């Protein structure tokens, strides 16, 4: 199970430090936030750190179709000429008029990436914004099917992943999701795997993604695709990464801003402004982040709040446990990577059992720390019932009998 950096604005060497420290296994680049020339330079640097670094490029084609705003924030997608070789703002009418437009866009997108020093190529797609029973879903399915055909035709010599971008609303209809999966698991020729994105309404809405049905649907996608032999790379999966790994994911990703920890089209819309968020510490035992000042209050009263990993040192006690902002993400990466090691097992039932135990431990930890501090709303235990129920619903819909969730 790989952990990748979800690249975004203001990298400032974070990914390099992540690779050098061994906290991440690779990077998914965002063309919105980096010019092509700079990207090539960073790819060279990343490969120099380790030739095994997993380097991918999210073409962000969906932004050209799904972002509906007179002044979208497309960044380098709009201004970098090289990206113009594949990035187009397509209307639905063009995309549903036939497959030639789709074929051309897929070919151009893959050919562009083929010139870069990447480990695999990601096909373009639009976002299924409402329902699997929609024209958008048909177009998305065509993109996926034609991506498989394009990799056979273009003889790219590197794995190609089809993008599957879905809104959390679409995931709520379990029947439609299962029908969609029934179709996409029968592709001929198939791509190597999928790059899966689950879009929330905005990146700050914790309840959008920490919803039992959304989690169950996301897990089911990973499970179904992986058992059919596909590699599944999840973008913006953040804290759900280890749970997705239990369901069969090949990789998950997260980054340094909240808009790199949850996927939303909001990052392509005009910014609303606001202050920088307070730095947080990802506590493995809580399966959640707490603010650095909560960490400072708890680190002696409840020492298990600390992960016991190297990046704990980035939250120095003599500075009130406040980390440098640029280093916060290193702690996130190391903690998630460690959770992956703790929870992910080749046997999905064993993995589910480990998850159940971790959630129970988190509940017990919250019981204790809530007697010491009043937690910030984002630090509280609201995510736990959603993850627990999400795993239970997943086990049920994946027809996994005899799991640790059967009794609940």
């Amino acid at each position, binding site marked *: 199970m790989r952990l990748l950096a979800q690249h975004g604005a203001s990298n400032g060497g974070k990914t390099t430090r992540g690779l050098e420290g061994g906290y991440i296994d690779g990077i998914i680049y965002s063309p919105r936030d980096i010019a092509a020339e700079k990207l090539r330079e960073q790819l060279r640097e990343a490969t120099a750190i380790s030739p095994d670094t997993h380097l991918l490029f999210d073409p962000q084609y969906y932004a050209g179709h799904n972002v509906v705003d007179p002044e979208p924030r497309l960044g380098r997608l709009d201004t970098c000429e090289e990206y113009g070789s594949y990035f187009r703002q397509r209307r639905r009418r063009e995309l549903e008029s036939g497959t030639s437009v789709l074929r051309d866009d897929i070919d151009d997108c893959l050919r562009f990436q083929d010139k870069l020093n990447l480990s695999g190529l990601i096909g373009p797609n639009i976002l299924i914004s409402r329902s699997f029973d929609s024209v958008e879903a048909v177009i998305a399915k065509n993109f996926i099917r034609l991506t498989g055909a394009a990799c056979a035709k273009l003889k790219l010599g590197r794995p190609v992943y089809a993008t599957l971008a879905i809104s959390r609303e679409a995931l709520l209809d379990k029947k439609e999701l299962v029908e969609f999966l029934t179709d996409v698991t*029968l592709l001929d020729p198939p791509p190597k795997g999928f790059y899966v994105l689950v879009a929330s309404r905005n990146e700050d809405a914790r309840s959008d993604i920490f919803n039992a049905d959304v989690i169950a649907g996301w897990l089911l996608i990973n499970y179904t695709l992986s058992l059919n*032999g596909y590699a599944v790379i999840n973008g913006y999966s953040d804290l759900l990464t280890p749970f997705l790994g239990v369901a069969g994911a090949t990789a998950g990703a997260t980054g340094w801003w909240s808009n790199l920890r949850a996927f939303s089209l909001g990052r392509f819309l005009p910014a609303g402004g606001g202050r920088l968020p307070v730095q947080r510490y990802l506590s493995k035992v809580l399966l959640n982040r707490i603010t650095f000042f909560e960490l400072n209050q708890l680190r002696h009263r409840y020492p298990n709040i600390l992960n016991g990993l190297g990046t704990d040192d980035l939250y120095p006690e003599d500075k009130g446990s406040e980390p440098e902002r640029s280093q916060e993400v290193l702690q996130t990466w190391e903690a998630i990577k460690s959770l992956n090691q703790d929870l992910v097992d080749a046997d999905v039932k064993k993995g589910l059992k480990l998850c159940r135990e971790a959630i129970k431990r988190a509940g017990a930890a919250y019981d204790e720390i809530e007697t010491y501090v009043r937690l910030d709303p984002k630090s509280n235990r609201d995510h736990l019932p959603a993850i627990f129920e999400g795993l239970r619903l997943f086990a049920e819909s*994946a027809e996994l009998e005899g799991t640790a969730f059967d009794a609940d």
Partner: protein
Amino acid sequence: MPTAVLDPETLRRHVPDLDSVEPCLDSGGFKSVYAATVRGKKEALKVLGVRRIIAEPDLVDAFYKEQIARIGREIKALRECRMLELVRLGSIAPVEFDVNNEKYIAYSEEFLEGQNLWKLIILHGQPPALGELVQLFRSLLRCIRKLWEHGYVHRDIKPANVIKTPDHRRPFVLLDLGIAFSVDETNLTFKPEDRMPPATLRYLAPEMMQPDFRQHLDFRADLYTTGMTVFEYAAGRHPLARDSDDLMRTISRALRQPPAPLKQHRQDLPDSFCNLVDGLLKKKPALRPANMAMLFQKLEAMA
């Protein structure tokens, strides 16, 4: 309603080129089968008696046409999908004839030495070893792959339709494409809205129970019945159905009841094999591993 069994002399009168016919070997459902000699060569003569399997006289013609079309599809599929693991056509093309005002159709396939798996299961002999089970699994997967390449779903894979032969080149041969489904051709079922889907209920893939199954049916229905067949041959018992079950109970089990893991019945078999068989018995087609290359690779590793 039992299928009509005809005496050898009657068959010889109506079917050309028959040197001799032995008494009926097997009968049930739609057909009866005879060992026959055709121009000096032993073949399996299949005879379909239409009136006996349908109660309402005014539906006989429609049903008869359906059966003719099904036989046509079976022959076409067998011609397109020639392979060692699939039964081959014999030399007698379909012949239509009447006996006592009842309609019959006869045609032939190669005669296979050996025993069908159903008979071996009810004999309760030595449980088959892993090597034999892997051979069976591989043979059925090869058939499914070949049929699907030509747009067919067999729809009736079950122990009674698999012959274990003494020929090491083709240790298992799949029979009877009589209810094969074609994704490229028109539906053959007369009045489909009034009838159960054509299949053997004990081996019915759950998705076949959906009213619109013809819109979505694919080879994963055959993977399910392959899982059933391999499970039953390995364990000596059907994964879901019980002899005491009525029709509704059988359907209900197919739709809702998860089968007990194969490992419960065959603890000597490796987990990897049992998990593979169990995986094919999932109710949702998307949850059955359908990547053929991966399935063959896993079986190779066990062989």
